[in-house]
Structure formats: structure tokens, C-alpha cells
């Protein structure tokens, strides 16, 4: 490995980046822009869930139940339905997320101390929203049942201890806000996209320019060329990591609980792996379009869909979850989320960090191996 040659390649690449205004825009503005856009856009929290009520009972109990929902800030009563047909209309038109159906004689059943049933007709077409809404509904109902039991016991002149009162203590993100969960993931995904865009064209571009021919006629080894190309992008990647962390903090108020040094280190190791993947596609492609297509289809999409960014790994079939393990982003997401939400340290995160470092080394070696010094 000759340092003079490697630095000559790095210097030429650096000059190229500096003189290409489009690549500067992509490098500095795109990640921030996308972080802002998606940071605001993606939000799993539901607030003021619209719902309707079809009350077939009319007793005090049913009115209390409905009031319980009306007074809750997460729900918003839009309409009292008078006939069944209207339920479907409201759900079809997406005016409400669910309809609460109170059966006739709810008051009588409850008054007699028998188990009563109420019905919720839920729009399941958006599963995320439906399951979040269902969770909130169950919370309200549990509260309400507890109150009813206490009242009933009072009337009987006895006291029942409520069977169990659950006080969940939620660690790491006590308000269960989705933003502290999403923003670190988003940073990871955007850095992946950026890395792919940065390096996927940098070798194949030379083929299109014709400079490839003199480059490979020179004594430079494939490893010197690949590493030399990587160096300027490592510097740029570092700037982007810092920029993303700052935007997450200033705009979204999301601050890592863990060590900043570890966050920067892990991010750089991850960027080395991602930039290496881009270089690999650049070394094997025949045109810039082909390289970009590879980078998007084979890295960006799996990173979004399989890494655990959108869908939890736990809910994936075993095979898919196994495939997810070969995606660097899967491991980086564990690290960055742990650092942001739990403040975990190296003693917990070293296996993931080791896997990422392994990825980075292997992919650069493979890219250099695939770089043929022949036409």
C-alpha cells in the first residue's frame, strides 16, 4: 500500500467533489432537508381520535361510559349515530376511526352485577392507527370497569379491593412519544442513502470519462485506488453525522442520553461500511445509472423495510429476520436507538459495533478485489 498514490487519488476525488455544485447540494442540504421533512411527517402518536357512538341503551351507565371517552383528550366524539347504516358510512368516509355501540339494557345488566359487553367497530384498513386506537380504548374501558366495580361494591355495603391496579413504569421514553424513537432511526436511514449516493458513482464515473484507462495503466493497486476514493467521503460523512445530530437536537429536541463520543465513533464505522457498499457497486457497474440503481434497490430499500426502522424485527418471519442481520443498518439502528433512548454504553453495544467494523473491512476488501485492472 503506497501512501503517495493513495493520497493522490484522495486529492483528485476531493477536488472533484468541491467543483461539482450538484454533489455539494446533495451532500449538505439533502440530509437536513429530509430529516426535517420526515421528522415532522412521521409520527405514530394519535391525538384526538375521531369516533362516533350508537347508543341503544340510554341509561345513566351508558351516558357515563360515553362521557368517559368524551372527556379523554385522546378522543373526539364526532357524531351520535341513530341507525346502523350510518356506522358503515362514517367508517367508509374515514370520518371516524371507530364507532362505540352500546347494546340495549346495558344499565340493567350492569345493575344486576352481570358481565356486560359493549361493541367497538374499528376501521382496520390502517393497522398501525387501529392498533394504537385499540390500546387507548382498552385503557379507558379498564378504568371505567374499575369505577363500576367500586360503585357496585359500595352499594352492597362492602369494599372490594380493586383486583389489580397496574402502574406501568416505562423506562427510556416515559411518555412513549414516537419522535425520540423515529429521529435516530431516520438519521440512520438518511446517512445510508447519502453514503450510497456519494460513492456509488465514483469509480464507474471514470469508466464513462475515459480516465479509467490511464488510471488502470498506472501502477496503482486496486486497494490504493479504492481506499483513496474512500478518504474524502469519510470526511464528508463525518460532517453529515454531526449535522444530523445537531438538527435532531435543535429542531426536534432529541438528544442522545449515551456517550456522544461513542455515537460519533459508531456512526463513522457505519458510514465506512455504507460508503464501502457504494464503492463496491461502483466497481462492478458499467454505468453510473446502473450503480445508482443498485445502490437504491439493494441497500436503501432493505435498509428502510428490513432493518427494523419501520417494522420491528420481532414481528418478522425467521428467515426475513435472518436476512435482516446481514444489513448493516439493522445493527446500527440498535446502537443509535440505544444511545439516544437508553444511554447504553460500549459494554452493551460492542457486539453490534464489532459487526459493523467487520462489515466495513470486508466490503472494502471485496470492492478492491472486484476492481479489475483490465478493460
Amino acid at each position, binding site marked *: 500500500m503506497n501512501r503517495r*498514490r493513495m493520497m493522490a487519488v484522495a486529492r483528485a476525488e476531493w477536488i472533484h467533489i468541491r467543483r461539482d455544485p450538484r454533489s455539494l447540494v446533495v451532500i449538505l442540504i439533502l440530509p437536513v432537508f429530509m430529516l426535517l421533512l420526515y421528522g415532522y411527517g412521521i409520527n405514530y402518536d394519535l391525538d384526538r381520535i375521531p369516533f362516533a357512538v350508537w347508543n341503544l341503551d340510554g341509561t345513566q351507565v351508558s351516558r357515563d361510559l360515553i362521557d368517559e371517552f368524551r372527556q379523554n383528550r385522546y378522543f373526539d366524539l364526532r357524531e351520535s349515530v341513530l341507525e346502523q347504516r350510518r356506522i358503515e358510512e362514517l367508517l367508509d368516509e374515514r370520518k371516524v376511526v371507530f364507532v362505540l355501540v352500546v347494546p340495549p339494557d346495558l344499565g340493567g345488566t350492569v345493575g344486576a352485577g352481570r358481565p356486560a359487553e359493549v361493541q367497538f367497530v374499528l376501521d382496520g384498513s390502517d393497522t398501525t392507527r387501529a392498533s394504537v386506537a385499540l390500546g387507548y380504548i382498552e385503557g379507558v374501558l379498564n378504568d371505567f370497569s374499575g369505577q363500576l366495580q367500586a360503585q357496585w361494591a359500595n352499594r352492597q355495603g362492602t369494599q372490594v379491593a380493586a383486583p389489580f391496579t397496574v402502574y406501568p413504569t416505562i423506562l427510556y421514553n416515559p411518555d412513549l412519544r414516537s419522535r425520540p424513537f423515529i429521529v435516530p432511526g431516520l438519521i440512520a436511514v438518511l446517512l445510508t442513502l447519502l453514503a450510497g449516493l456519494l460513492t456509488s458513482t465514483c469509480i464507474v464515473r471514470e469508466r464513462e470519462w475515459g480516465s479509467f484507462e490511464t488510471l488502470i495503466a498506472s*501502477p496503482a493497486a486496486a486497494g490504493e485506488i479504492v481506499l483513496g476514493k474512500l478518504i474524502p467521503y469519510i470526511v464528508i460523512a463525518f460532517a453529515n453525522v454531526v449535522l444530523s445530530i445537531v438538527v435532531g437536537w435543535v429542531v426536534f429536541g432529541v438528544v442522545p442520553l449515551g456517550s456522544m463520543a461513542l455515537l460519533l465513533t459508531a456512526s463513522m464505522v457505519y458510514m465506512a461500511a455504507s460508503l464501502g457498499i457504494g464503492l463496491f457497486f461502483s466497481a462492478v457497474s458499467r454505468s453510473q445509472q446502473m450503480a445508482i440503481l443498485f445502490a437504491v434497490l439493494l441497500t436503501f430499500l432493505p435498509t428502510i423495510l428490513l432493518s427494523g426502522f419501520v417494522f420491528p424485527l420481532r414481528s418478522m418471519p425467521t428467515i426475513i429476520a435472518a436476512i435482516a442481520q446481514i444489513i448493516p443498518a439493522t445493527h446500527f439502528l440498535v446502537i443509535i436507538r440505544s444511545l439516544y433512548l437508553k444511554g447504553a454504553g460500549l459494554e452493551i453495544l460492542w457486539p453490534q459495533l464489532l459487526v459493523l467494523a467487520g462489515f466495513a473491512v470486508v466490503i472494502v476488501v471485496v470492492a478492491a478485489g472486484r476492481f479489475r*485492472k483490465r478493460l
Partner: protein
Amino acid sequence: MALAVEVSNLVKRFGDFTAVDGISFSVSKGEVFGFLGPNGAGKSTTIRMLCGLLLPTSGEARIAEHDIYRETELIRRSIGYMPQFFSLYPDLTVRENIEFYAGMYEVPRARARERVEELSGRLGLEGLLDRMTRTLSTGWRQRAALATALVHQPPLAFLDEPTSGVDPVTRRQFWEFIDDLAREGTTVFVTTHVMDEAEHCTRLVIMHDGAIIAEGTPEEMRTRYVQNMVEVQAAPLWEALEALQASPLVREAALFGDALHVQLREEVVDPAEAVRQALGEAGVAVEAAECIPPTMEDVFVALARGGEEAVREASP
């Protein structure tokens, strides 16, 4: 004298197409060796094999005494290569391009700066060192490419069509520069499809359809392959051309500037007189007809058009 290039039975096939068909030749150190032939003759394919960019289908070659299969990296250190097509970094300046290749060939930085000054002075690039190569016209791009190929003072330089797309003045300067290089001890291997440039070579081969059809010094080429060449001034020129082409004594007649170059068959003893006679019979007024030494273009026309048949007859 030691050989800079030694090639035997080199073959390159691309699928069914044979680009280079078993060629053999050698180049001594210090030569300006010309590789001539029309576009598509297989010149660039040969150069690429010799520089280690393409693997030959079969055959042997040694460059600077290194084997092209096993010692490619050693070869790369000993040569400079200027490809046929624009191969500089378009968004780097001339100076940055030269310095980049100085780095690739491990030229120390201080020496690299000296070389930039030296080469730009000799190639007239001084005023353009800080221009991006994308903004240069072809002639200047070719000069810059030549400078990058020579920054490390290689003992052997492969120049693939250095003068293509270059104006006649620049072309002349290029050849003067190449002559100087050779005098300083660099072996130059140069291809061209412009036949008259062959005059600058110490030795040359002519390639046609992947094979070498002629080899020798420019002088040998002219005397061996083309005899009985007559330059004719006549009026009207077109009628003279038609009359001569119809004559059984004439092997080849072609327009050459405002005159005709006529090659007569070997058995004709007094070619100039034969031409006068033939034109007299056809009723065309002859202004002048005299025997001349053939130009390289005459040689190539004779070889390529008169065909390989003529070559086979003439070859020893």
C-alpha cells in the same frame, strides 16, 4: 541492442471477431517505432495488450523485458501510456492532472513540480496550466495528455494516435517533441492512421485487418513496396486519370493534390516515357511527367488497395 518490445504470435479475439491475428515484431531501445494502419486495423487493441489492459487470447510478448501475463505490474511501472481517446480528468486543471499522475508513479513532489514546468514549457502549455481540461480544445488536450503520460520519464512510451484531431502545425510540433524524446533515450511506440507521419519513425509496421502487412524503415517501405512512381501534370486532369487507369501498363493511378501519382508495372523500363505515350494516345496534353520517390501515402495506397497480392509478390 536490447529489445524494448518483443511480440510473437499475439492474438486477440472478441467472440467471433479476430481483432489481432497472430502478429510478431520487435522494437529496439531508442527507436521511434510506428504502428500504422487504418482505423479498425487492430492498432489500439495491440497497444492495450502490451500495456496490460487487455489479456491476449494467445501469443507471447515481453515489454521492457517483462512478461505481459505474469509481470503486468512491473510493465506498468516502466511505461507511459497515452490512450487514443480523451482520458484526463475533465474537472481537474492541466497541472492537477499532471500532478495526479506524478503521484500515481511515485514521482517525489518537488520533482513533480519541476516536471510540470519542464513539460509545459516544451509543449507550450504554460498559459493553460490552471485551466480545467474540459475547457480545452483537442490539440491542447492532446498536449496535456502527453505531459501526463511522460511526467515520470518512462523509458518506454506508448502513444495511441497522439495526433488525431490535431491541426497540422501542432502535429509538426508533436513529432518534433517525439524526435527529442527519442534523442534523450526514450523508446517511443506510436500509432497513427496518417501515413505521412511514418516519415518520422525510425522503423514501422503497417497493420491491416489485424495482421501486419509490411515492415521496415520508411526508406525500405518506399523502395520495396512501390516502384515506378511517376508524378504527372496534365490537362484535363480527370481525363488523364481515366486514360491512365485504363492502361494495361498502369498498376495504380490516383489524384495527389493537383497532380496524379501513377504507379506502373514492374516490367516497365522507362515509366515517365510510358506515361507520356499512354496520354498521347488518349489525346491528353501532358505538362510534366517525371519519376519520383513514393510518399508513405503512396505505399499505403498500394498496399491496401492494390491489395495484399502486391505485398506478397514484393515481400522477400
